């Protein structure tokens, strides 16, 4: 095989890889760019140097190379990781990268990059479910198993069926196989946008199996506004007092 043939093989291989990537990664045409109002607490996780990282969903999207509106996988993997942490760790306890492993079943780059970013590459394993492919997804692709390696505890969950609109996966398969009509493409873009929005706004117990409502409340702790307001008031009062004292002293002189 001469150099020219090797070069041609490489080019063809890269085209194949690119086309696979296009099938999996591409955001469908016509999706809504504007996101709903959402408030998601950051994921708190120690890095290997024991610095506590606060990873927001925006950080995750930015670090993995996409805008948040362009992807369903990033919101899904962010929410499922946050939920798993709340199930496996108590109160002020936070995981360390390298300690929490995930087995996931979704072959998208969005899932892979997100889990790699949040939990590190060595801790993420992709297992494709039988009867699914990159073009053909089922609910089985949205099953997750998180393993806390220091204690051996396991949290298994899956996205609830109600999160995806009826016929979502059939429509997706048609769109990805280039067999969908323009109407079906438009419908899929709408369903896709709705699903993405659900991962941003819905409660964890509505999104994932095996999460109790009370646990969700504990997960999303109310921000300590009273404590903050008290400290801020003391700070402002102290500053005013200092200024008054300085003024009185200056006047006395």
């Amino acid at each position, binding site marked *: 095989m001469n150099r020219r043939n090797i070069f041609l093989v490489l080019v063809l291989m890269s085209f194949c890889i690119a086309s696979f990537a296009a099938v999996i990664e591409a955001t469908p045409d016509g999706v809504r760019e504007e996101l709903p109002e959402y408030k998601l607490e950051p994921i708190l996780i120690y890095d290997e*140097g*024991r*610095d506590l990282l606060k990873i927001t969903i*925006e950080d995750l999207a930015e670090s993995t190379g996409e805008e948040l509106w362009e992807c369903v996988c990033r919101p899904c993997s962010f929410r499922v990781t946050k939920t798993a942490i709340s199930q496996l760790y108590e109160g002020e306890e936070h995981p360390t990268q390298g300690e929490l492993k995930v087995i996931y079943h979704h072959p998208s780059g969005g899932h892979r990059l997100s889990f790699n970013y949040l939990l590190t590459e060595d801790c993420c394993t992709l297992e494709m479910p039988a009867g699914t492919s990159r073009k053909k997804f089922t609910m089985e692709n949205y099953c997750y198993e998180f393993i806390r390696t220091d204690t051996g505890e396991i949290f298994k969950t899956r996205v609830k069926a109600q999160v995806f609109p009826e016929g979502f996966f059939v429509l997706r398969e048609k769109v990805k196989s280039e067999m969908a009509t323009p109407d079906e493409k438009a419908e899929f873009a709408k369903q896709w946008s709705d699903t993405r929005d659900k991962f941003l706004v819905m409660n964890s117990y509505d999104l994932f199996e095996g999460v109790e409502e009370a646990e969700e409340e504990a997960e999303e702790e109310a*921000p300590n506004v009273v*404590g*903050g307001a008290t400290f*801020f008031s003391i700070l402002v009062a102290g500053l005013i007092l200092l200024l008054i004292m300085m003024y009185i002293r200056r006047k006395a002189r």
Partner: protein
Amino acid sequence: MKRLSSIYFGILGVIALAFGIADLLVTIGGSGLSFGILEIPCDAFRGGWGGLIILSAGLFYLAGIKNISEIHQISKVMMGSILIWIIAGLDIFAMITESIPGGDRSWFNTLEGFLETYAPPYAPAIFLLPFSLVVFYYILKKERNILKKEKDEE
């Protein structure tokens, strides 16, 4: 009164010393600690360098408590307080700068987000700050005494 101030700054010095040592130990350990509203940072700057400064503040306080009414001694106490103000000032400045921007989605923070930034837990220097301000009372008292002495001499 002299005795009371010595006891006060002695206790403050011991607490500052303990906080400084705790800061350094936590930094060496590499894992931040949080007890209720107290948080001991573990990063090299705030935990390591900051811990060293708090430790020095404690040493200054302890060095200044003997014969505290003497000007050189009170200046040591003042020095201890200044060191605490530097670290606490940095912490408060960090809070202020963190509280204003809204992150990726907006230029400015929400009221809730703004106030949340000032919520506990706090680093040890913040707890030492109000107690270190007592030194002003003694400085002003000293100033009054000096002025009175000068007046009497005139």
